[in-house]
């Protein structure tokens, strides 16, 4: 397990970065200082978590990366190019699923493709493929209100996968479902990572979740959000996913992070 006390900008030769943040700050109208000069790299092909107490600005940071919110200062580089708005190389998974209640599962998953002008037949084929990949085959013609919370989030995930973006941005995607479903999702996420060669940026407030799924964890401090630590736990993720939670490195990491975060709570 390697812990860096200071955030490092890794040399560009080792792993190139899908997303880089340089001195990103966000001040809302009314003076709320959400983020303060955040500089972080997100290595390509890895899953990086943003972890921190409530109000530390992790969702704000994620939306700035997605281009849904403008940064007050600083730069966001995606694949080496500075971006200010949404782009085809990034896809977002929402905490409250953001499904259109009037559309079927198929229509929802195909939505992103449809907006980009992909032909109808191709849209539907791609959508069906990803619906199957998230395990919802047979539910193509159902409406969101006929699905459970876990299934709705899988639709959201399929929609984000369908546009074949390089970077997948996930905003506390598993926080709106029950504990058992959440654990199942975490396992599925590991499997997904093995199959799809994407960069994941994952926002969560759960320490266990972050250590379970991530290659790197970026810890943010309370408002104004700054990077307080970057941790890269070295947990072997073999075939037995249940063994991860008993691995000593996992347990130590969780413990260290919790002791560090406790200081920020009143």
């Amino acid at each position: 397990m390697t812990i860096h006390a200071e955030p490092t900008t890794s040399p560009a030769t080792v792993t190139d970065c899908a997303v880089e943040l340089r001195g990103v700050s966000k001040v809302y109208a009314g003076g709320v200082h959400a983020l303060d000069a955040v500089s972080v790299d997100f290595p390509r092909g890895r899953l990086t978590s943003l972890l921190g107490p409530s109000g530390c600005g992790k969702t704000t940071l994620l939306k700035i990366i997605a281009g849904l919110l403008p940064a007050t200062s600083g730069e966001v580089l995606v694949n080496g190019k500075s971006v200010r708005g949404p782009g085809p190389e990034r896809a977002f998974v929402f905490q409250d699923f953001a499904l259109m209640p009037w559309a079927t599962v198929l229509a929802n998953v195909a939505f992103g493709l449809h907006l980009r002008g992909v032909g109808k037949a191709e849209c539907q084929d791609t959508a069906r493929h990803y619906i199957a990949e998230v395990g919802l085959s047979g539910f193509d013609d159902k409406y969101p209100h006929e699905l459970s919370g876990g299934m709705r989030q899988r639709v959201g995930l399929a929609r984000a996968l369908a546009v074949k973006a390089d970077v997948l941005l996930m905003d506390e995607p598993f926080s709106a479902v029950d504990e058992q479903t959440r654990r199942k999702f975490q396992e599925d996420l590991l499997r997904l990572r093995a199959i799809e060669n994407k960069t994941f940026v994952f926002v969560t407030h759960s320490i266990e979740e972050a250590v379970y799924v991530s290659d790197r964890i970026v810890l943010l401090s309370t408002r104004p959000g700054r990077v307080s630590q970057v941790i890269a736990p070295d947990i072997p993720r073999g075939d037995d996913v249940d063994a991860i939670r008993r691995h000593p490195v996992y347990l130590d990491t969780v413990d260290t992070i919790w002791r560090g975060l406790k200081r920020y709570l009143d």
Partner: protein
Amino acid sequence: MASLRRETGAESAADGLGLSRLIPFGAFAPRTALLDREPSALAAFVSHPLTLRVLSALAICLAWEGAARIPISFAFPTFSATMVALWSMIADLSLVHAFAITLQPLVVGLLISTVLGVAIGVAMGLSAWVQWLVSPVFIVAQAAPLAALIPLIIFAYGIGLTAKTLVVCIMAMPVIVLNSYVAVRHAPVSLLEMGRSFLGGHRQVITRIILPAASPVIFAGLRLGCAAAFVGAILAELLITPVGIGDLITYNRSIADYPKMYAAILSIVVVSVLFIELLEVIEVTVFRPEKRARA
């Protein structure tokens, strides 16, 4: 257990037919398995929704018939007499002609109000300065008794189709505009962000997300506007111009042919209810198919 005893007391009053099981809220009906009883088959039949509807309709008709035979008033015809009169008016086509006249300004006015009203309301929802400029007008119009303007319009613009269409429009538009505005403003923020994150253009977000999300409230406004339009059309006819359904009502009242008068009134009420139901069908079919699945 004192609370259980109290439950039994309250329960027995309502529970003669085992109907307490059908009352949803906790405090009024015991929820414990001990006190749950299976309702008898008869009780289940009587409290079935369709049975209740048919029974209540029948009860009203019988009450009408009975009350008229008492008689409550010489001006209160029996249900059967009204039905006979209704049939005779349909048979001799007088009802059909009357509706042909009354429905013209109504349908035209409603179409104009819908197109204009929804457009203005959506524009208000999307643009702050449009909202600033236009909403006070409609807020005042919504609260005010616009019916007072009707005689004026007729005086000024005569009794033709134009004047009556104008009347329908001023009655229907305020509620359509305001409902559309509220509907657009209440489009869920996360859906809008989702649209933007998938690179939806401005127009795409409006047509594919905002409008479908807003359609239930917009259609509620259309239904209210439809009711107001009918009020406007009938008021115009009752007040000034002796044509159409209004004419049937006033003429038959003046010659004291009450069965026909009531029949005419009943027919316009039924038609307005049908129009409103039609709007609901359109909404479910075209805009919100999941409502059908939900129902």
